[in-house]
């Protein structure tokens, strides 16, 4: 089966100023995004990840290179019909209600008239926006905007969903909710491409990651593989007395291992926050 997105030798130069100086935003990028996974595209600001996604979606033209989406040429109506997109910091017409927006996007995406109602309700349900769907978008909070944006991206049941900074500016509870939505989509067999520079969230949500810097791909692989330090081990021990510690260290040294540090494990602030805050004000 073909990859969800196949990028081969992609290059994009922007012309700057009157003299037309070239700024190379993407430099000979090649990667394969497999189907049915959550794929993270990471990198610092200005590394070319958003440009890459825009080229994939046909919003920006490539200087060189080739891209296929789900086996089809990119930037075609057929490819876009099978793709959903949530842009960074989404903005929608404030006078539309959430339901009207999702319906509007469903109709533009080719959902038939007899199935649009059900598709809209399903998308709203997936994004946990059913209750707020009849309010004007102008009254939504940041998190609600992201969720309604998510709904409009998936209403036409696309096979590939591209999310550009989906949790930017969203609180941890909202971010976790978006993470759950992403996993729900993956479990349905969708491919999700997630573009972000919030590494903690990417680590939790993604199956595979690619890291870009200055337009080039510097690393690519499964999250577990790229993060694991196989030359070291972590053991978590409960109720260890000083005597037990000394005996354990001696036993390990006898086998040639070396204990380099002993510390108490820490929770992350995010985990603590989630433990303490049980609900969001968004609903």
């Amino acid at each position, binding site marked *: 089966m073909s990859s969800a997105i196949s990028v081969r030798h992609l290059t994009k130069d922007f012309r700057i100023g009157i003299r037309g100086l070239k700024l190379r935003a993407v430099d000979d990028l090649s990667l394969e995004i497999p189907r049915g996974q959550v794929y993270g595209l990471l990198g610092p600001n200005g590394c070319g990840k958003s440009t890459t996604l825009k080229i994939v979606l046909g919003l920006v033209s490539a200087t060189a290179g080739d891209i296929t989406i789900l086996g089809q040429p990119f930037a075609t109506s057929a490819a876009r019909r099978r793709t959903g997109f949530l842009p960074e910091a989404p903005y929608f017409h404030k006078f539309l209600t959430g339901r009207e927006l999702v319906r509007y*996007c469903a109709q533009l*995406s080719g959902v038939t008239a007899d199935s649009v109602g059900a598709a809209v309700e399903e998308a709203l349900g997936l994004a946990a926006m059913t209750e707020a769907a009849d309010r004007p978008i102008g009254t939504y909070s940041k998190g609600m905007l992201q969720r309604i944006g998510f709904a409009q991206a998936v209403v036409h049941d696309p096979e590939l969903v591209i999310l550009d900074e989906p949790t930017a500016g969203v609180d941890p509870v909202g971010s976790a909710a978006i993470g759950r939505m992403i996993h729900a989509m993956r479990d349905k067999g969708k491919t999700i491409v997630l573009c972000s520079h919030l590494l903690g969230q990417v680590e939790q949500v993604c199956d595979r990651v690619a890291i870009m810097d200055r337009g080039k791909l510097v690393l690519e692989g499964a999250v577990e593989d790229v993060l694991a330090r196989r030359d070291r081990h972590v053991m978590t021990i409960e109720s260890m007395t000083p005597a037990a510690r000394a005996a354990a260290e001696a036993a390990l040294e006898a086998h040639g291992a070396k204990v380099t540090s002993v510390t108490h494990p820490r929770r992350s602030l995010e985990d603590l926050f989630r433990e303490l805050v049980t609900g969001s004000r968004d609903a």
Partner: protein
Amino acid sequence: MKASLQRILWISKVTFLEAVRQRFFAFLLVLSAAMVLSSVSFRVFDFGHGELKFIADFGFGGMFFFGSVLAVVMTAQLFFSEMDNKTALTLLAKPLSRAEFLLGKFCGAWAVLAVFVVVLASLLGLVLWAREAELIALAEQSGKIPATFSAGGLAEFVLLQWLRLGVITGIVLAISALARTFLFAVVVGSLAVVAGQLQWIAQDAVLKPSDSVLYEGFLWVSCRLIPNLQQFNIGDALVLGSAAVAPGAVVEVVLSGLFYVVAYLILGSLIFRRREI
């Protein structure tokens, strides 16, 4: 084809809703309406033009001036708000072609201009009708022939004004597809309207023979690229009967206007196709 038309319809519907909610539209509509209504009071300044002509001229002038301002500013604003707010990103990532997007924008803006023109024309027709009745009564007393106006002519004139504003909208969209900023689109769009109003000079020159091939070539290109907006200015003749309108002339003007609309929309689509969002 049907799906494409539906997508255009959805874009135009949302564009229309966005436009009529803007205070700018309401402001211009109220200002134009006030202008039409106030023409009845200003008739003390009338130097014997014929009162109906004075009132009609106020209405025609308001319809064109404020209609043109609305067409230029509102169309550019509707386009650039999508670009600047990045709603265009969301829409164009869907199976929606650039041409469909632009056509949807055009239809939405043109629908708003239809509302503007019809409301103003209705008000003008009402004022003319009321004043005509008063003048007929006065003329019968003094044994003079009263001035009258033609409601059918007013309807024809309204159609021509709507078409003229449609041509302006098409031009502004083509300019917006190329422009980087809203201000640039408004300024160049306004200059295009002025050029269109002065294009009759080139049209008159074309009717006269010339020896210079370069001059003739320049006139030929100019007459095709820049629409002659003065040809829509036959309100006096249609509404007040001040001059005869040749049979079929209105149809020719309509066809010319429609061709310009199509031409500028095609040009705008071709330019927009290459634009990076």
